[in-house]
C-alpha cells in the first residue's frame, strides 16, 4: 500500500513533465496538422538553457534558490520560445502547402540539427547538477519501515506545472489570442477571412509550445539532476505517445495522456521491470492506435455541414 502510494506520487510528477511537453505536440498538430518531431529536442534545449542559467546565476553570486529558479524559468522559456519561432520560420513555413510528408521530414532533420548542435556546443557527456531543493516530507510509514516520501522537489514540479497549465488554459479559453489560436485550429481559411493573421498565430503557437517544453526541461533537470543531449528523443516520443493517448489535438487530453504515461511507466518499473518500462509505454501507443484511434478525449470529427 505504502509502496503503491509512493509510485503514485512519482508517477504523477513524471506525468506532469510529459504532459507539459505533450501540450506542445498537440497544439501544433491541432493548428497545422503536423507532428513536430523537433519538439522533444526543444525540451532538451530548454533543459540545457536552464542548466546554463542556473550555473551562471550562481557564478554571479545569486544564492537565493527561489529567485534563481524564477529567473531561470523565465530566461529558459523566453530563449526556447525564440527557438520555437525560428524552427517554424526556417524549417516548416517554407514547406507549407507542399506535400504532407515534407514538413515531417524537415522536422526530423531539425531534431537531428538540435541534438548535434547541443552535442557539439555542450559536449556529449551527461551533465549532473546537485539537488537544489533537497528534503521532503514523510507522509507515512508502511509495513517493514518503508517510508512514503513526498519531496519538496516533487511538490515544486507538480505545483509549477499546474500553475503554468492553469495560465495556459486561461490564455487559450479566455483571451483574443487564444480564440484566434482555436479558430486557426478549427478552420485556418475561415480564420484568415475574419482578419486573423494566421501566419502570426501559427508562429505564436510554436513559441508557446516551446516555452512549455522549456519549463518541462527545467523540471526534468531539477527532478533527475542529470541531462544529456539525447534526453529529448525518448522524452519527446513519450510525450508524443501521451498526446496520442489523450487524443491528439485535445489540450486536456495531452495532460491526461501525460499523467497516464507517467503512471504506467512508474508502476511498470516498480512492479515488473525497469528495463522494459519504455516497451510498456510504447505498447500503450500501439494499443491505443489500434483500438481507440482518436484517443481518450479525441473527437471523431462528426460535424454538420
Amino acid at each position, binding site marked *: 500500500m505504502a509502496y503503491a502510494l509512493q509510485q503514485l506520487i512519482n508517477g504523477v510528477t513524471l506525468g506532469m513533465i510529459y504532459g507539459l511537453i505533450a501540450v506542445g505536440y498537440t497544439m501544433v498538430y491541432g493548428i497545422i496538422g503536423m507532428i513536430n518531431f523537433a519538439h522533444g529536442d526543444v525540451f532538451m534545449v530548454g533543459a540545457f538553457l536552464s542548466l546554463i542559467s542556473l550555473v551562471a546565476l550562481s557564478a554571479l553570486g545569486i544564492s537565493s534558490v527561489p529567485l534563481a529558479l524564477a529567473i531561470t524559468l523565465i530566461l529558459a522559456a523566453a530563449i526556447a520560445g525564440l527557438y520555437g519561432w525560428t524552427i517554424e520560420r526556417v524549417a516548416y513555413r517554407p514547406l507549407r502547402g507542399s506535400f504532407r510528408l515534407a514538413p515531417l521530414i524537415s522536422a526530423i532533420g531539425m531534431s537531428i540539427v538540435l541534438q548535434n548542435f547541443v552535442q557539439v556546443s555542450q559536449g556529449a557527456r551527461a551533465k549532473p547538477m546537485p539537488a537544489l531543493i533537497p528534503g521532503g516530507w514523510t507522509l507515512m510509514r508502511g509495513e517493514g519501515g518503508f517510508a512514503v516520501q513526498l519531496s519538496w522537489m516533487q511538490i515544486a514540479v507538480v505545483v509549477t506545472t499546474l500553475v503554468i497549465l492553469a495560465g495556459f488554459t486561461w490564455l487559450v479559453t479566455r483571451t483574443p489570442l487564444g*480564440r484566434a489560436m482555436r479558430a486557426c485550429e*478549427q478552420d485556418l481559411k475561415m480564420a484568415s477571412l475574419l482578419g486573423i493573421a494566421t501566419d502570426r498565430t501559427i508562429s505564436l503557437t510554436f513559441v508557446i509550445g516551446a516555452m512549455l517544453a522549456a519549463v518541462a526541461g527545467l523540471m526534468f533537470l531539477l527532478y533527475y539532476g542529470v541531462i544529456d543531449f539525447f534526453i529529448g528523443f525518448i522524452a519527446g516520443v513519450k510525450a508524443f505517445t501521451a498526446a496520442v493517448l489523450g487524443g491528439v489535438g485535445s489540450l486536456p487530453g495531452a495532460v491526461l495522456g501525460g499523467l497516464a504515461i507517467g503512471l504506467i511507466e512508474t508502476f511498470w518499473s516498480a512492479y515488473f521491470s525497469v528495463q522494459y518500462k519504455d516497451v510498456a509505454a510504447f505498447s500503450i501507443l500501439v494499443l491505443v492506435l489500434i483500438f481507440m484511434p482518436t484517443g481518450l478525449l479525441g*473527437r471523431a470529427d462528426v460535424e*454538420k455541414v
Partner: protein
Amino acid sequence: MTALLSLRGVTAFYGAIQALKGVDLDVNEGEIVTLIGANGAGKSTLMMTICGNPRARDGQILYDGADISALPTHLIMRRAIAQSPEGRRIFPRMSVYENLLMGAHGRSAAEAEETMEQVFALFPRMKERATQRGGTLSGGEQQMLAIGRALMSRPRLLLLDEPSLGLAPLVVRQIFSAIRDLNRSTGLTVLLVEQNAFQALRLAHRGYVLVNGAITMAGTGPDLLARPEIRAAYLEGGH
C-alpha cells in the same frame, strides 16, 4: 455613383485550371448585387478571389479606390469587407457566442458587445443558442450564425455566398428579408452569390450572370428576370 468594389479583367487559377477568365464587375456603395450561375461556374472562386485566396493572377480588384489584389487575406478583411463563405464554415467547437466574437476580431470588447446585440435583434435564435456549440446547430441556424459573424466586423461590403443552400423555403425567406432590412436600414453593400436565381434577382438591385468563369450578362434585377434566356437556364429548372 462610385463603385465600392470593381473588378477589371480578373483571372484566377486552381493549379492549372483557370477558374475565372477575365471578370469585370462593379458593386456600388449601398447596392445589393447578385451573381448567379450554375454549379462550377466560378461564383465562389470569385468571392474568394476578392478576399485574396486564391489570388487574382491578372487584372485589378479595386476596393474603395485602392487595388487590394496583392494584399494578404487578413489585411483585405480588415478593410471592412466580410464574407459569409460557401459551406458556412462555422467554427464547430466554439459556442455561438464565441463564433460571433471571432467576427469582431481586432475590435474592442465593448464594440463587439454592442454589435452582438444588433445581431441578436436580427437573428433572435442566435441569442437562444448563444452557449451551444456551432457544430450542433441546424443548417439554417448555422447560416444565420455565418451571416451574423460576418456582420460582427461592421462591414461596408458583405460577401454572401449561397446563403440559401440546403435551407427550407421559410428560412430562406427569413434570411433574404434580413439582408434587405440591413441594406435599407444601414446602407450595407452586398454582393450575393446564389443558385436560387429567382429570389436573388428579386432582392438585388443588379445582377450578373457567370458562365464558365466569365460574365455573360448583366442588368438590373427585374431586367434579368424578364429575359427569356435567364428564365430558361436558371429559373425553370433547366441547366
